[in-house]
């Protein structure tokens, strides 16, 4: 086995397959038009600067930060759900101690953010933000309420499918991922340019959580499963 101490340079990370990630420029999502680079990106061989990254400790996360329904005196309005899953690298290895941060709209489709002007009610008992660290098996769990769909101004009669934003740190700065988790069967998928920006249909489907009876708690909350895969180091043929 190749030991870290004897390596002359950093072990490169595998690059995601063609079509599995969205492009920077996707005209149906209008805000990309002035914010996407148009000059060619410079292909970067991975150095230590790319394959290292911040490793967070438990001091960053409070005990109940993964329960978005208990951050206020009362219970938030909406459908209580349990979102759980695992964070893995591209070899299927679970990633323990991965920091996950989430944020979302309330059940009426309104964010607690000054720029959200959607005329839907704010919920005094819901902030819509949480964080957690994965356990030794790479597993995480959030309790929250199902977010509502909401309108946006991208095009006439544009609505975002219900989603929860996920921010995840892996072992390297280049395995950093910000994404969105969707819910099965949403009729808005076909009209949403953000979801549709991912060229590969199968890759796109990976952003849709699955209803899960096993993690559903009787008379209390439905369970949804969402596994997250982060880029991992290239496999070396000499490793077993």
């Amino acid at each position, binding site marked *: 086995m190749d030991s870290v101490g004897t*390596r*002359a*340079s*950093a072990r490169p990370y595998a690059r*995601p*397959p063609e079509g599995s*990630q*969205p*492009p*920077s420029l996707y005209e149906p*999502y209008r*805000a990309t*038009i*002035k*914010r*996407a*680079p*148009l000059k060619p990106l*410079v*292909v*970067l061989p991975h*150095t*230590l*600067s*790319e394959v*290292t990254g*911040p*490793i967070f400790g438990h001091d960053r996360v409070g005990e109940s930060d993964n329960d978005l329904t208990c951050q206020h005196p009362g219970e938030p309005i909406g459908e209580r759900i349990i979102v759980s899953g695992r964070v*893995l690298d*591209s*070899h*299927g*290895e679970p990633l323990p101690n991965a920091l996950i941060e*989430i*944020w979302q709209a309330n059940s009426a489709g309104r*964010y607690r*953010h000054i*720029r*959200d002007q959607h005329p839907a009610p704010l919920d005094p008992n819901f*902030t819509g*933000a949480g964080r957690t660290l994965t356990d030794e098996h790479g597993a995480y769990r959030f309790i929250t309420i199902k977010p509502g769909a909401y309108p946006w101004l991208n095009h006439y009669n544009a609505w975002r499918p219900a989603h929860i*934003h996920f921010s995840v740190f892996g072992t390297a*700065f*280049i395995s*950093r*991922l*910000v*994404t*969105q988790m969707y819910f099965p069967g949403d009729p808005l998928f076909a009209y949403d340019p*953000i979801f549709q*920006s*991912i060229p590969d249909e*199968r*890759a796109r489907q*990976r*952003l849709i959580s699955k209803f899960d009876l096993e993690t559903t708690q009787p008379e209390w909350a439905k369970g949804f499963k969402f596994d997250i*895969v*982060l880029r991992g180091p290239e*496999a*070396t043929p000499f490793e077993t």
Partner: protein
Amino acid sequence: MKPDTDLVPTPSQTVGPFFAIELTTVEHCVQCVAGPQAEGERVCLTFRVVDGEGVPVDDAMLEIWQADSNGKYNHPEDAQAKKLEPGWMGFGRVATGEDGTCVLETIRPGRVTQSASPQAPHLTVGVFARGMLKQLYTRVYFAGNAANEEDPILQLVPSERRGTLLARADPARPGYWSFDIRLQGDLETVFFDV
């Protein structure tokens, strides 16, 4: 590691316009990468993010990753025979304001030498914003540093574009630097395909 297993990484989606309720709250921003006790030359770095029309991007988040003043990363993959400064993390997270700027307090990192060609002092930056379906990566080097001439990554960049990766020192205020991130246009910042 099981080399046979090959999972496709989860696709990226935009951070959107409302990330500030979690990612850049007062508690979760990390404006100060290096505390006052940190070794090294102090740097106050002002970033300015603009779009293809030169309009300030007032809803971007920047994440920074850097080595300490010895060029050592706080990470198990760093096999350099160097001492890591006690308490060094090396991570920063800042959000742009109305004028598209944000300020990072840090120190100038040392040279990372875990390869045949040592790198010049640099910060790695991830740029996130509404209208960006995935983050962009760039690097901040320090103008005037002799080591830039032999940096292996800068050599990969067409010479006429290298300047976009250089932070500029404010001649009137020692220790103050600025770095523009132009997402698009003639003076577009160099972004890396990582």
